[in-house]
């Protein structure tokens, strides 16, 4: 008899709770736009926040609500953008794919140090002590804050220098935001010729602190047949729209500050 009572009460409370919940589910039902669910499924689901929204769910709601462009997700590929555009009934306009790039080649063997740093292994902390331990105050400190924030495992520290794998990079921009030295920048994915230096000093001032820095000698500017590289503020900068990958500047640069893959060299016309 006791057991029957116990079962009846527990079961009864369970059933009452169940009925109440079923009733509440009807009463508090919210119509979710089917497009939000579809868009959410088409998004990568990394929740990286590169789009500026809190996560993929928030982004899906923004796209479905017309508050964000269908290709607003910088991580999704062209296929995904097309799928989202399909769901929304518009067409996606594909922009150029960018990747993040570290504008510094001053690894431990090429760049000098101005002091011994024994503090927290953290770029921001190191930068707070006289702007970091590298003699060049614009260079990569190599403690790997960018590695920490990268959700896609695209960054590695090689010989005291952050190196971004452009195949893995999704241009979410988190490393750019994190870097206290602002040495990371977006460059077009298809571009190979990049000035790997961020130092705005001239000549000897650069040479003294780093063997591979841009000394603003303008040899690249003079030799470029396409008007695609210019020295402004003592730093060479490639005009990625005009560059034809002829690699003349890469070959001529006296400090090898310009990065470029010579195997893909094209004949300059």
């Amino acid at each position, binding site marked *: 008899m006791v057991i029957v009572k116990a079962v009846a009460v*527990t079961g009864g409370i369970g059933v009452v*709770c169940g009925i109440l919940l079923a009733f509440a589910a009807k009463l508090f*039902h919210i119509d979710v736009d089917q497009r939000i669910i579809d868009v959410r499924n088409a998004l990568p689901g990394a929740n990286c926040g590169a789009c500026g929204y809190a996560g993929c769910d928030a982004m899906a709601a923004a796209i479905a609500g017309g508050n964000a462009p269908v290709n607003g997700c910088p991580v999704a590929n062209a296929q995904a953008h097309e799928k989202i555009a399909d769901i929304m009934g518009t067409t996606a306009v594909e922009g150029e794919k960018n990747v993040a790039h570290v504008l510094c080649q001053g690894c431990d063997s090429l760049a000098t140090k101005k002091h011994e740093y024994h503090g927290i292994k953290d770029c921001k902390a190191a930068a707070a002590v006289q702007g970091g331990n590298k003699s060049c105050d614009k260079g990569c400190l190599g403690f790997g804050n960018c590695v920490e924030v990268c959700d896609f495992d695209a960054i590695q520290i090689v010989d005291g220098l952050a190196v971004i794998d452009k195949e893995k990079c999704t241009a979410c921009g988190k490393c750019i935001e994190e870097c206290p030295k602002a040495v990371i920048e977006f460059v077009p994915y298809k571009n190979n010729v990049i000035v790997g230096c961020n130092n705005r000093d001239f000549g000897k001032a650069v040479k003294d602190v780093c063997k591979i820095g841009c000394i603003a000698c303008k040899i690249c500017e003079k030799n470029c047949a396409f008007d695609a590289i210019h020295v402004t503020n003592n730093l060479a900068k490639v005009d990625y729209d005009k560059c034809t990958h002829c690699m003349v500047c890469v070959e001529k640069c006296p400090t090898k500050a310009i990065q470029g893959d010579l195997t893909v060299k094209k004949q300059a016309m």
Partner: protein
Amino acid sequence: MELVSLFITSFIVNNIIFMQFLGTCPFLGVSKKIDTAAGMGIAVIFVITLASIITYIVHHAILVPLELEYLQTIVFILIIAALVQFVEMFLKKSAPGLYQALGIFLPLITTNCAVLGVAINNIIYEYSFVKSLVYSVGTSSGFLLAIVLFAGVRDKVDYADLPESLKGSAISLITAGLMSVAFLGFSGLQL
């Protein structure tokens, strides 16, 4: 005065985490960042207070008259689980802002033994309705205090140069133990 003393006691002196060791799972799990820790703490206050009201009523209106007090554990679990579900639906409809803020923590709390612990303690200590209300608010605020303090310490520990074998959970458990020892200092407090 009695109520104030009850609040302080449950808030600090008998802190649910450091002195009673209840709810340590979310305490260790959701304390990596201060803002998520605070979110979890606030959600716990919300659910514990509601749960203790409902379980108090169910206990005294159903279980006691039917002489089924020994069923309190299973019945309370049932009620807490249903209550959390209901609160989630209700908030989603009527207070989407609060729902967004509490986010994932609300369903997580269903499995938080602190909620069940407070509901059962209310019965064991034979508190009146008002007292049990004060006790649950005090205890859950204690949870908020503990988890936010702990998240702050973990934030600093992240930057420390630790031996490899202590990294991660190991140092977290040691930290929690030391904080518990620190809270022992309150144990002689008489109000």
